[in-house]
């Protein structure tokens, strides 16, 4: 399994979890994996929606003790 970079966006109101993920992907290589940690429940829908629109891969999304863990793989 590829090494997964944790993006700890808990409590990030600005830029927020999705914008932070978009920024990290800009400087990543195709195939790199990221796991976003978010306390914003909106991340559970807006990150998968964006990932689908752009064509990256959603590897999983789960909630644990109020923290969303959303894993994404850069595909292009």
């Amino acid at each position, binding site marked *: 399994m590829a090494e997964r970079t944790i*993006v*700890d*966006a808990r*409590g*990030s*109101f*600005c*830029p*927020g*979890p*999705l*914008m*932070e993920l*978009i*920024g*990290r992907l*800009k*400087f*990543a290589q195709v195939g790199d994996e990221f796991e976003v940690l978010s306390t914003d429940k*909106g991340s559970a829908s*807006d990150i998968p*929606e*964006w990932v689908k*629109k*752009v064509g990256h891969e959603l590897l999983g999304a789960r909630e644990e003790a109020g923290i969303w863990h959303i894993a994404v793989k850069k595909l292009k």
Partner: protein
Amino acid sequence: MKIVIVGGGMGGTILGNNLARRLGGEIQSGKVKLTMLSASDKHMYQPGLLYLALGRMTPDELYRDQTSLLEPGIDFQVDPVEEFRLDANEVRTKGGKVHGYDILVIATGSRPAPEMIPGLAENAELFYTEQTALKMFKRLQAFQGGKVVIAVGVPHKCPMAPLEITFMLHDYFKDRGIRDKVQLHYTYPIGRVHNLEPVAKWAVPEFERLGITHETFFNMKEVDGKSQTVKSEEGGEVKYDLLISIPAHKGMEIIEKNKLGAGGFIPTDKVKLTMEGRSNVYVIGDTTNIPISKAGSTAHYQAETLGENIAAIVKLGSPVRDHDGKVFCFIECGKDRATYAMFNYYNPPDPKPPTRAVHWFKMAYNKLYWASARGLL
């Protein structure tokens, strides 16, 4: 003890002054040596570039001599660092000097990187450097009507800039009597019109009231100057007559060259402000990879926390507090109204409706900034 600050922007300057005051006695007695290494002898008030692009400030108002802002206890040298030898606790400068340190602070900032999007630098107006802001000012003056598109790169400095330039352009064209000939179209990378949900909720009805069209999930992929089209990663396409962009930013080249962090942003502990894996290297301002606004106020509050902690390390042997992630951003909502967003890691923002009073406070802050950089405000 040797303390070296790399960078003379807002974060480095406030930190340097803060430390020079807190450690005045130690510096005078020779117990502490405080050095600042910078690439420039000038200090720029970067938020002024927004006003420069709209003809509301002039270039001379943006600069001060760096030495005029610094406490005398700081050994300031215009000699940028080229090599970070972190394992040896030293840095090497362009001039060839090697500075050893006990504590290193990296505050080199970020830079606009329009080259990340093909066609953007050649075809868009930007306002993140003096040169491009002046070019945009002239282009706006010559513009007589058509579709103006605002497009936003990620990550970018000053999260309020996309909204501010849009509202200010509305008033700019209105004042010129050509607002009815201009279509303003705002695009944004995520699923709402601003990162901050309460700001986004306020902005949408404002856009509708002012006749500003908008679309979300729009991340620039490329700009075609011939067909005057900007395409998005999401498959969208927008035609423009005038493209105004908040470009993506990168950290400074020297950070990338020294392999300190992807995109020039250094992995940093968000409460300790230490570089990951290093206990005596601190990072503040735009240089960090902390998921926090790349804004002057972010650097300002980090510098205050770090000043207190480094002084405590010298005097007590350990830092005294965690950083709380405080940010305070003005939001210009046109030429004469503004509001603000204040938040930290633990408390969300609760912006109030814009007022003239907050706008005039921002106008005053444009002058008070120099007191802020000196660490007086």
